[in-house]
């Protein structure tokens, strides 16, 4: 079913994540093997509690798996120290969270270039200009996050995720708190990240319309992979979700 691809930007082999012990033991991910292909937009869907966020956190180096391996580009994340993981995140990963993405003391532009700053890298002006233009904030780049709308803030976060030219951009329900117009603008921006800037995007979402922006949709249920869809449309995704939830 998978389209033939040359490289994978990130992936997991036999990834298992267990929370708690004894009575409170929860297997959030159960032996998941997955690849995220370079230059593709992948959406992850599944019922609440199915392990989507956990999968993303593990692959992004924010959390450590109980067992299994995680690859980011050609780097194996197992056994890296905190500082090494931090460096990997900074150089190879971009993030967009559902909310609270930006540092309130920095301006929009400073927030965008923050990862470069942290790495001590000079921004590539052409790339920054292009991304900033894509964000479409115009003259509001000098504003603090508090002076921007929720949708604008999320777009700034998205630009920040793209600016380091990471191997993978992870977005966990970035449209969760936005209305449909702001959502569309944000998803279009992520899409352009893939099409124009050649990035790899992994999007966790509950919204079939959002998943329709992706090239591929992976379904998770009870911590396991439960199939995938290529060239999704909102309706096909919705159908698949309904079956999944019925099974669950």
């Amino acid at each position, binding site marked *: 079913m998978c389209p033939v691809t040359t490289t994978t930007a990130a992936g997991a082999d036999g990834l298992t994540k267990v929370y708690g012990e004894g009575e409170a033991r929860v297997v959030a991910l159960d032996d998941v093997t997955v690849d995220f292909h370079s230059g593709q937009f992948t959406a992850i869907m599944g019922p609440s509690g199915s392990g989507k966020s956990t999968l993303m*956190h593990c692959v992004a180096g*924010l*959390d450590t798996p109980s067992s299994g391996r995680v690859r980011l580009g050609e780097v194996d994340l197992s056994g890296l120290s*905190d*500082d090494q993981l*931090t*460096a990997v*995140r*900074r*150089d190879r990963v*971009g*993030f967009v*969270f*559902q*909310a*609270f*993405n*930006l*540092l*309130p*003391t*920095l301006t929009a532009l*400073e927030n965008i270039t*923050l*990862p470069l*700053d*942290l*790495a*001590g890298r000079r921004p590539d002006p052409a790339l920054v200009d292009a991304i900033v233009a894509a964000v479409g904030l115009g003259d509001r780049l000098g504003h603090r996050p508090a002076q921007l709308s929720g949708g604008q803030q999320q777009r700034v976060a998205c630009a*920040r995720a793209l600016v380091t030219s990471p191997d993978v951009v992870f977005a966990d*329900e970035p449209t*969760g708190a936005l209305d449909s117009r702001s959502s569309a603008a944000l998803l279009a921006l992520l899409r352009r990240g893939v099409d124009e800037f050649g990035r790899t995007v992994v999007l966790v979402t509950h919204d079939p319309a959002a998943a329709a922006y992706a090239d591929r949709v992976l379904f998770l249920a009870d911590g396991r992979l439960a199939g995938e869809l290529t060239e999704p449309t909102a309706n096909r995704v919705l159908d698949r979700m309904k079956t999944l939830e019925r099974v669950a």
Partner: protein
Amino acid sequence: MWRAMVRDLRAHRGRLAMTLASIVLGVAFVVSSWVLADSTAASVRATDLRSDVDVVVSGHDLTDADLADLAALPGVSAARGVLAGRAALVGADGKLVAGPHDTAGTGWDRTDRFVLTAGREPRGPGEVAAADGTELSTGDTARVFLADGRQVRATVVGTFGYRTVGSEPAPRLAYDQDSARSMFGSYHWIELTGEHIAVPPAPGRQVDTARALGEQATADAEAAAGSTRETLLAFAAVALLVGGFVIANTFAMLVTQRVRQYALLRAVGATRRQVRRAVLGEAAALGAAGATGGVLLGLALAFTALVLAQDDTEFVVSPLGILVGYAVGVGVTVVAAHACARRAATVAPVAALRTDALTPPHRTRRVRVAAGLLLVAAGVATVAATSGVDDLGTTERIVGLVGGIVAWLGVLVLAPELSAALRPVAALLTRLGGPATRLGARNALRDPRRTAATSSALLVGLALVCAFATLGETMVSMFGDTVRATVPATTTVLRPAAGDEPLGTDVLDRVRDTPGVTGAAAQRYGSATVATGGRTTVSAIEPDAFGTLLTPPLVAGTADLRTGFVVGTNEAAMLGVGLGDQVTLDFDGERVTRPVVGLHTTTEAQPLFYLDVAAAPAWLRDRTTTVYATGTDPAAVRTALDRAFAGRPDVRVTDREGVIDEDMGEFAAVLAVMYAMFGAAVVIAIFGVVNTLALSVLERRREIGVLRAVGARRRLVRRAVRVESLVICGYGGITGIVVGVGFGAVMQHVMLGRELFAISVPYLVIGVSLAGMVAVGVLAALWPARRAARTDVLVAIATR
């Protein structure tokens, strides 16, 4: 609601730790001061006084004839003359032991004065009994110098405990009566026993009943304890003030964090008053907890101090002291939290529903700016108004000082707004530094009120240190200047090796007899009462010495002491007298009236009145305090005098630089104690910085999580917190130093009567303060930075 608040308080235990610590320290300071004062007073009260004396007659040169007259008075059943005089004991190291020496020698008698504790009483020449605590025991040799410079050695045959009538100093050595008579000459006082004794008054003679002396002793001790208490409490007040800043700041942060909670309470029906009361209740509970810790710590501190002092002072804890501790702890906390409680009460119920509006409104901003500016302006104007005055009177001095304090308060009130001045600094830091610097600097500026409130504590502490340092440094340089102006470099100075007691009466003559000495004079330093004013200091000196051995800078009139007084300009201004005016000095009953013939510039450390020794009372003439000598070859004179007094541990041969060093050394020790006292305030200020940083870090958990997620290493997070800490400390520190030096200028102006800007800047203390400020910044950030760096990224970014 109460239960909710108490639970909340418990849940925030960690956040309140630093605040609690500052209350504990402040209260501990108060309680230990109180206990120490009570304990010292109680031990004096407890010493048993003599009951075998009814009346004490004292005076200069009491003779056997006086004794016989007094013994013949009706009602007198027994009269005893007490021989006492100078017996300066030489220690095992060949140096004089610490004084007082003036009445350290006495004659043994079988009254209640002495209680033999070992050996036997002295029976003849060459024998002596030593008081307990002198480190002399039976068989040792006691070597003393008498008032006339004679050296006497005697073997210790016994030791004794001593009981006093009142607060007279206890003697150290007791010789047999005949030896004592030959050593000390006249009676120091005469003790009478009997009933209904009426002693006729005579000039220079003082008559007291034993009971009055005893009561006086107790009153003196209590007054001394009271003034110890007041001094210590003044320092404690500074610590409490600084603690108040910390408390206020903590509550400001807690209220901000809990706006939604208050809104919810209001939404479900709590009145404003209930919300305010709840916050105040919380403050009272916190204050009580802190006071409990403070009382315990204070008791422990006082106990340790008493044990370390080893002078078997009784440990007395009065309920009042503990009560005061609690009152102060709870009071300061509630007062400090009051503004925050009111702010919490203004939270509107709708805030519970909104996601923005997370800070309760500050209504007082404009009022605060206006008040602050007004205070600063008024203070500066007041100081300026008094600064032009050359010879300050008492009123101008007090007004000037109040002006300084008012301006200082103004700066404190303005502090949050002044922190806007940090903006360019932060901008610069941002430009120069990396991301950590930028984040840290901006975080420090985020809430100017918080930064200002946090650094105010440091401001107060450091300002006090710098103010006293400025005063001290100015005093030191001024003292040096006056001594250098008054004493020529060619003059050799002889002064007592220990204490302020007079030199041996032989010293002046021996100096005169030393080969090479062509000019020698003695200063007799003492105090007298000015008929129209308070106490003053007088130096009786040979008129010839003026202009040669001693050169006090004359600004008006003549230096001829034969015709009248030469008076310090500042003293003349205080007394309101000028050239030609008659002034009467009262030396314990003997009056000297002369005109003012000259005015000299001086400081309070130098004698204010110069008097011809020929006109001085007879007893003062023998009280040589300093001898000045010179000759055609001053260096040879110095060498000759060094040699002549080599065997005299009671005399120090030195020159003007030696005098400066010695006196300023003592002064530096006093200043050091003062710095240590203000140190408590600085420590509390550090708690404040830690507290603010820790709470800020907690508040910004999410931000830190994002920062970590996008690639900030732990080190960077730590560094950002450290920069924030440094900015806060730097702001408080530098403002504190500036305010301190300014206030120091005002202090030296009003206290020393010098020009406002004629200060010596205490570079050393400022340097240490700056270094300390950086150290505090780094230190205070350690723990909060660690916590910040440990922030769990996943928890921080979790949306629920």
